[in-house]
């Protein structure tokens, strides 16, 4: 579904990603871990096509096609979704209205009719209830005045309504209380299917207690220096990153 080959990305003319290779197949969940500033968000943003993230080398293929030349909304309409580490507030834009516009665009791309206002409302309310968002919050402007955790929950609500094929969740589990973490995990699990895939950027093992990843990758200084199964996350939790960094340094210089 997603194939990243030798990806180099610069931000403000500074090299951040220095050759990422990653393949995500349908039905898989990949976790990406790594120290602060290692390039996890940069990777997610580059895949989503955020302006300012310049790919200088390598390629990103989505369902076999290079998407480097695609504008961000085109990527989203093709089935990509980025839950942001820092979701943005949209003053004056109602959450419901925003999501309706997004779903309309996605459906149009797929050659489907727009949902009527009533049909959309039914879907929206259903998802709001599933995600455990308060009705009051669901009627407010997008993320405006939301707490950190509420914003994260709103990202999951959007994912649940838009049903992307590939979801990139950038630290959606950070800043969540235990109940919220569980609803987010439930949301992720119920979304999981053989047809779609997920990339979870996280610092914590605890989300992985609920959402079992197929692969765990460790990103350090713009490179994936180690990949493994779910046990790797446990090991990282216990020992930190230093030992892998050192091992990798030995391997590279050797």
């Amino acid at each position: 579904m997603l194939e990243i080959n030798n990806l180099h990305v610069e931000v403000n003319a500074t090299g951040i990603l220095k050759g990422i290779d990653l393949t995500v197949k349908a039905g898989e969940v990949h976790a990406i871990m790594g120290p602060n500033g290692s390039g996890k968000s940069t990777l997610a943003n580059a895949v989503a096509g955020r302006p300012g993230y310049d790919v200088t080398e390598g390629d990103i293929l989505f369902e076999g096609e290079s998407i480097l030349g695609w504008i961000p909304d085109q990527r989203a309409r093709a089935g990509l979704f980025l839950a942001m580490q820092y979701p943005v507030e949209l003053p004056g834009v109602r959450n419901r209205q925003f999501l309706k516009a997004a779903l309309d665009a996605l459906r149009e791309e797929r050659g489907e009719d727009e949902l009527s206002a009533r049909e959309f409302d039914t879907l929206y309310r259903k998802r709001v209830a599933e995600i455990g968002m308060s009705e009051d919050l669901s009627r407010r402007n997008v993320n405006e005045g939301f707490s950190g955790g509420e914003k994260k929950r709103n990202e999951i609500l959007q994912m649940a309504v838009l049903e992307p094929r590939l979801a990139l969740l950038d630290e959606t589990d950070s800043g969540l209380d235990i109940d919220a973490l569980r609803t987010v995990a439930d949301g992720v699990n119920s979304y999981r299917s053989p047809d779609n895939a997920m990339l979870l950027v996280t610092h914590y093992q605890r989300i992985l207690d609920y959402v079992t990843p197929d692969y765990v990758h460790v990103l350090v200084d713009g490179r994936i220096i180690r990949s493994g199964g779910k046990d790797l996350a446990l090991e990282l939790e216990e020992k930190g990153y230093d030992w892998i960094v050192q091992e990798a340094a030995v391997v590279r210089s050797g």
Partner: protein
Amino acid sequence: MTSKTSTYDLYAKQFDRLPSTGPEWLSAFRQRGIDSFSMLGFPTSRKDNERWKYTNLGPLANAAFGYAERPGTVDAGLLKALAPSSDDWVQLVFVDGHYAPEHSTNGHAGNGVVVGRIGDTDGLSLNGVGERLGSLASLESDGFTALNTAFATDGAVVKVSPGGSAPTVQLVYVTTEHGEAIATHPRALVIAGEGSECTVVESYVGVGESTYFTNSVSEIILEDGAQVEHYRLMMDSPNAFHIGSTPVRMAEDSTFNSLSFARGGRVARNGLHVMLDAPGSKCVVGGLYFTYGTQHIDNHIVIDHLKPQTGSDLYFKGILDDRSRAVFSGGVIVHPNAQKSEAYQKDQNLLLSEGARINTKPMLEIYADDIQATHGATAGAVADEAIFYMRSRGIDENTARDLLVHGFAKEIIDRVSLEPLREYLDGLFADGLPGAGAKHSEGGKSRG
């Protein structure tokens, strides 16, 4: 360049040809207007003229506007498309300066409210109109008020008796497409009696892209404890000249809530002067201006805190595209006697193009020491991260921009308590900045 004399001659000729109808006091009133205009002319020089510093009146003074002998045709369908409407509202419609009885509910009287015409006050219990008309709009202030006065043969009077509660009254002024550019001088007087409540909507609308000059004066008088909700829609043609002046005097414990919505014109001026003339009088004034092309809007707001415990709260927002230009000047003056007053003002602007320009000057002059006041102004572009956030959900860049523009406007639109008016405004902004549709063919411009 037309000289002051020839501008005067132009309007004096029109004045002379107008039949002198209506009560005697009105003829005398109008005569004082034309006399005063002969002295003042238009304020053409911008030098040493703080009030007109950012608005060039040269093109207005140089143009020769005619007088419409007969109004153009406006059918019910067109009227509905141009202005908000509701079956529950009482309304007076003027087309090209002429009263349009077929669209109006003239002479409405009930619940202590009288809605009538200035030139037709005899049959209605509108005593006192003669004394109140012109009591706020000073003939010495500038040539525009003088000229308006000279042509005040017709106009609207809304008078609410003490304790009365009026239905919503809308005054609609339509300018149609004429062979020649015409001038109209709409005049209105609102008197809200002691403890009364009323809502007045003034809608100035232009048909198509016509060139015209609207020179309007609306005086609003609030007696003790009166509550007035006031809306002013300036939906002018892009080629229109519109100079609007709204003087307001407030008595004890009265409240005045006013919202204006202006799309600008070739030259448009939204002038409001509130005199907080008694303790406990409070005004909340909001506005939304939205311009594109080469339009110009000048919001000139003056608030005089003349007495203790008065309050003013100004909140304006502007959205500017292309090479349009807007001015916000908020002059809030807290006079020495106005202790324990509160004065707040804020102007926020969204610039959609690098060629757009805003001159914003919120000004506070404080001569009392025990008061609370704040003022501030901002101007910025649409946030890139907001656009990207929406695009990352599949929404294209133009739609994203439109949603943000509507969102920006919504904060002012949501203050409108009249549902038909709110719907009208939301409809205007449904596809982003009204009138700026052509912009969309440009396609997306993103960095990176």
